[in-house]
């Protein structure tokens, strides 16, 4: 199986889906001539032409809205926001329109649009370019929220997302574009709504996603040296949650730590923890723990930034306190 970088896996997914379906097109800021600010759309303009790879003005509300309108009209748009920070300018279209159109129109239309955008902190980009907003989107019924953490899942989930009939927030991560991994060639589809048990274990379950998944995995490796066996779940789909997999694992290990790089207050971790408590409380041997970012706008300074973000040591520390 060939090794690909995360960004190239995404690129391959786009290329394959555009080849497969003439209705699929890409729009966004600097996606065509510039080939994407993270080079995810490299080579696509020359291969598919300006009709299907469209540069837009820096105008996020109409990028989102035009993509939604095009989806209502029968196309399959993949709209890119250069970073998640700019989706805030498109929130009305995403939340008030994309998420609600199908329901409020009685199921008489669907909105098959994919909004791709990178999140992430830790690159000293300062407060306005370092944040994770997945819980904002997960809060909205009508949206599907995906956050792949590996190149293989990046490809497989994006291909599935493009074929799905629902509006999808496809959250990439600026820290992951360069990571490499084996990626199946051609048809590789990862189902929406299915978490991945990336590492089996018996003593504690680490639930995570996106860049934080790699923290959890690293922590599990180090814990193994202390003879603590950690199961690591990569959620992949953040909304709707794969509660089957989460419950099964919680009931198996009886201890749960949720790792997320988003802010602590209102973090998706709280929702996951509450659902575990509601359904398998009796299985727990210790209170559920969260390892998250601190509730602070991200500072620029390297040392302060590291203090604000969860580290592998924090995950290990949380586990040690439970077992």
């Amino acid at each position, binding site marked *: 199986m060939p090794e690909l970088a995360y960004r190239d896996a995404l690129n391959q997914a786009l290329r394959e889906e555009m080849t*497969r379906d003439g209705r699929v*097109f890409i729009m966004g800021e600097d996606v065509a001539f510039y080939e994407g600010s993270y080079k995810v759309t490299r080579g696509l303009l020359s291969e598919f032409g300006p*009709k299907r790879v*469209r540069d*837009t*003005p820096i*105008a996020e*509300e*109409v990028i*989102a*809205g*035009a*993509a*939604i*309108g*095009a*989806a*209502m*009209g*029968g*196309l399959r*748009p993949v709209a890119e926001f250069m970073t998640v920070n700019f989706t805030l300018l498109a929130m*009305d*279209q995403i939340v*008030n*329109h994309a998420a609600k*159109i*199908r*329901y*409020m*129109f*009685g*199921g*008489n*239309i*669907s909105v098959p649009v994919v909004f791709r955008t990178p999140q992430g902190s830790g690159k000293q980009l300062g407060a306005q370019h370092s944040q994770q907003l997945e819980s904002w989107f997960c809060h909205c019924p*009508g949206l599907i929220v995906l956050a792949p953490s590996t190149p293989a899942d990046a490809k497989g989930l994006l291909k599935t997302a493009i*074929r*799905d*009939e*629902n509006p999808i927030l496809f959250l990439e991560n600026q820290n992951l574009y360069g990571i490499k991994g084996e990626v199946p060639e051609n*048809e590789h*589809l990862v*189902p*929406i*709504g*299915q978490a991945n048990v990336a590492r089996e274990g018996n003593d504690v379950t680490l639930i995570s996603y996106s860049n934080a998944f790699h923290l959890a995995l690293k922590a599990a490796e180090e814990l193994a040296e202390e003879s603590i066996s950690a199961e690591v779940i990569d959620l992949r789909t953040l*909304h*709707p*949650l794969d*509660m089957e997999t989460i*419950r*099964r694992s919680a*009931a*198996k290990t*009886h201890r749960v730590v949720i790792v997320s790089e988003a802010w602590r207050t209102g973090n998706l971790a709280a929702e996951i923890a509450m*659902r575990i408590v509601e*359904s*398998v409380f009796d*299985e727990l041997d210790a209170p559920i723990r969260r390892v998250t970012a601190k509730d602070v706008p991200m500072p620029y300074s390297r040392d302060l930034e590291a203090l604000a973000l969860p580290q592998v040591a924090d995950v290990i520390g949380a586990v040690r306190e439970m077992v």
Partner: protein
Amino acid sequence: MKLTAQYTGTQLLQMYRQMLLIRVFEEKVAEMYTKGHISGFSHLYIGQEAVAVGVASALAGTDYMITAYREHGQAIAKGCDPKEVMAELFGKATGLCGGKGGSMHLFDLEKRFMGGFAIVAGQMPLAVGLGLCASYREEDTVVACLFGDGAVNEGAFHESLNLASLWNLPVIFICENNLYGMGTAVHRATALTHIAGHACAYGIPGLQTDGMDVLAVHETVSRLARNVRDGQGPVLVEALTYRFRGHSMADPLKYRTPQEEEIWKRRDPIPALAEMMSREGLVRSDALTETRQSVEQEVAAAIAFAEESPVPPEQQLMQDIYVPTQFMDSTGALHHQPMSISVDHAPEPEQALARRGETEGRE
């Protein structure tokens, strides 16, 4: 200019009937609202009928209309069944959207009525997307995007006109300038009150039309639709009009003078068209009376239909949030998305217990 030169009596009578249908429909909506059959917000179109009917009569059936939340009349003008519109306002299962949309969210894909939207200017980016579809597929479809004067101050207005112009999309942006964004007069909200003039910032034509004259609107939009279909790109039309009632049923109308209202009511588009037709001998004297009777019957039938229709069943509550998806891969195998969109809620206690039985015993 003689009307006989351009229109047949049948055409004119049809426009008259449509405007009257909207008027009588909306008067009944007000009555039903007062009686408690209709709840929520209800923004009446009374006074502005010439715009919707002038626009819709200038479009082909395959053209799109997309609009804001004062849209009962626009939906009817685009061909939606008044029964289904009324049933939607009553919140009934037989409504256009099964009772899930309500007054501000009417929708009819078959009639290419692409929805009423209740965030000011929110429908404008969507119109750009619908225009992109037509352009992408090289169809000669036109998108009529209606919005109020309040929308002009939203960023979405400017972003939409810019992108539609940049991509040369077949969208007719039609501003119904009724002089007030809710209770705030245009001159108190918009620096350039000549709304058609905003077009020059985007390099597209901007025109004003008399929104109290159905024929003026019809002619303007017909001509522009031909240009747009020919690939000449988007246009901005400002239809000068007036709503005779408040912003919504809750509006006490304290921000307008009775004198101003009286001036506009003298320009009521419905009697104006009737007089024109009579003056030029284009309708039989009893045709107008017959039209009114048939319209009243149609609206009475819509009310009866709405009253008699069932409310949506309980199982509809969680339906239509997502599309359950299945798709075929390249090998021809059918995949089901396992989510099936049963967004997880805490399982019933029995289920939880059963699940626990399946898991391994505790250490």
